């Protein structure tokens, strides 16, 4: 068995060496052609099968690539949407801060900007938490304003933050007057989150819907002329001592993000700093 195998190997080696030698002498054309008769048709068939298989494979890969592209593009679109939202948000913040800065510069008072970091919006208490506290020399009853108007007052000062009682808080009341008629009164918060202007009936004859109500400056807590809101409805109670008017706040307390704290200086009328509100 082994001898037969060795003999076969010897014969094969001999044939190969002869073939190689013939080729080197340029005489192996016949052998090559004879083999090509066998190999060429097989190769043709295999090439076709291969091409078909690769075609199917290529289609599958294309499909997978399309799916991957689709996923990638969806992610990209999502990312760009988020980016666009972020840009819009930044733009809005930019505008808000510009308005706040403009107000800060126009006010004849010392102010400090603060950021709203929390909101309490239950019916019992309506307050905002601002990121300025004892460390920033904030004191109790500091007036808090926004470019649109009055926000409220500081009622609690902590180490790094303060609580702002918003105008709509049921315990809030501010001395005010109507700009057009100079009707004096008090703006009070209501549990349902609205504002009302309480005034002496004898003074209220001239009130109109849309009139601007501003701080009166009386009492020394708030400077005069800070917009509070506009008269929405008038509740004329006839012979009663007091009459009431519903006021739409100038500031949207639910959306406010930055405020100014009025830190000091002589209390005076600041109406000129609030443009177009009267």
């Amino acid at each position, binding site marked *: 068995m082994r001898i037969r195998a060795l003999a076969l190997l010897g014969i*094969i080696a001999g044939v190969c060496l002869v073939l190689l030698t013939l080729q080197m002498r340029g005489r192996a054309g016949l052998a090559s052609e004879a*083999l090509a008769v066998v190999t060429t048709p097989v190769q043709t068939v295999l090439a076709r099968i291969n091409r078909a298989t690769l075609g199917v494979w290529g289609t599958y890969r294309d499909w997978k690539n399309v799916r991957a592209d689709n996923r990638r593009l969806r992610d990209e679109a999502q990312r760009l949407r988020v980016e666009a939202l972020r840009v819009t948000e930044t733009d809005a913040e930019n505008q808000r801060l510009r308005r706040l800065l403009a107000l800060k510069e126009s006010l004849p008072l010392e102010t400090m900007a603060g950021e709203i970091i929390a909101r309490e919006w239950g019916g019992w208490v309506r307050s905002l938490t601002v990121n300025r506290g004892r460390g920033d020399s904030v004191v109790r009853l500091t007036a808090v304003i926004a470019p649109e108007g009055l926000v409220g007052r500081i009622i609690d000062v902590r180490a790094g933050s303060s609580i702002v009682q918003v105008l709509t808080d049921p315990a809030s009341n501010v001395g005010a007057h109507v700009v057009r008629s100079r009707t004096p009164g008090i703006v009070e918060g209501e549990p349902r989150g609205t504002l009302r202007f309480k005034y002496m009936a004898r003074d209220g004859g001239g009130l109109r819907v849309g009139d601007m109500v501003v701080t009166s400056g009386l009492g020394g807590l708030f400077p005069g002329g800070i917009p509070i809101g506009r008269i929405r409805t008038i509740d004329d109670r006839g012979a009663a001592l007091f009459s009431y008017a519903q006021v739409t706040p100038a500031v949207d307390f639910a959306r406010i993000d930055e405020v100014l704290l009025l830190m000091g200086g002589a209390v005076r009328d600041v109406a000129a700093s609030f443009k177009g509100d009267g």
Partner: protein
Amino acid sequence: MRTFLAIAVLGGGVAHATVGSALRIADVAPDIPLIVVVLLALRRGPEFGCGAGFVAGLLQDAATGGLLGVQALTKAVVGFAIGMIGGRLRVSQPLVQIPGLVLLSVLEGLARFGLLQLFHFPAPFGELMTYVVLPQALYNGFLGAALVLALAWAETVKGRTP
């Protein structure tokens, strides 16, 4: 069985040039005929291995347009040698199969290079080993082991079928 063997040997030799490119990874293609020859020699002995190596190598030479007889001779020698010593090797373990096939591929490459030197083959030895023989040997090792495992699995399944 004979048909299968004929397809394996002839197909392996010719398919290498046609289908082998589809298995290319980083410009390295496996030597399918060599793997087929090794597998056949392990199962059928030196005589068959030698003959299969010759036929597969010759067809490979013809199909690839190389010098007729180079791969025919080297693969015949490989088939013979594996057929001779195969019985003493524990080839059922992938840890033997992979390095074994890598080593065989390298030896076959060396033999081919040595043979071609007789005919003034110009390629430098170092580059040939680095970029052709060794990468292909590694590929052969892993592909061959996978084929062995696939064949073993197929035989197990066949054995279970009533």
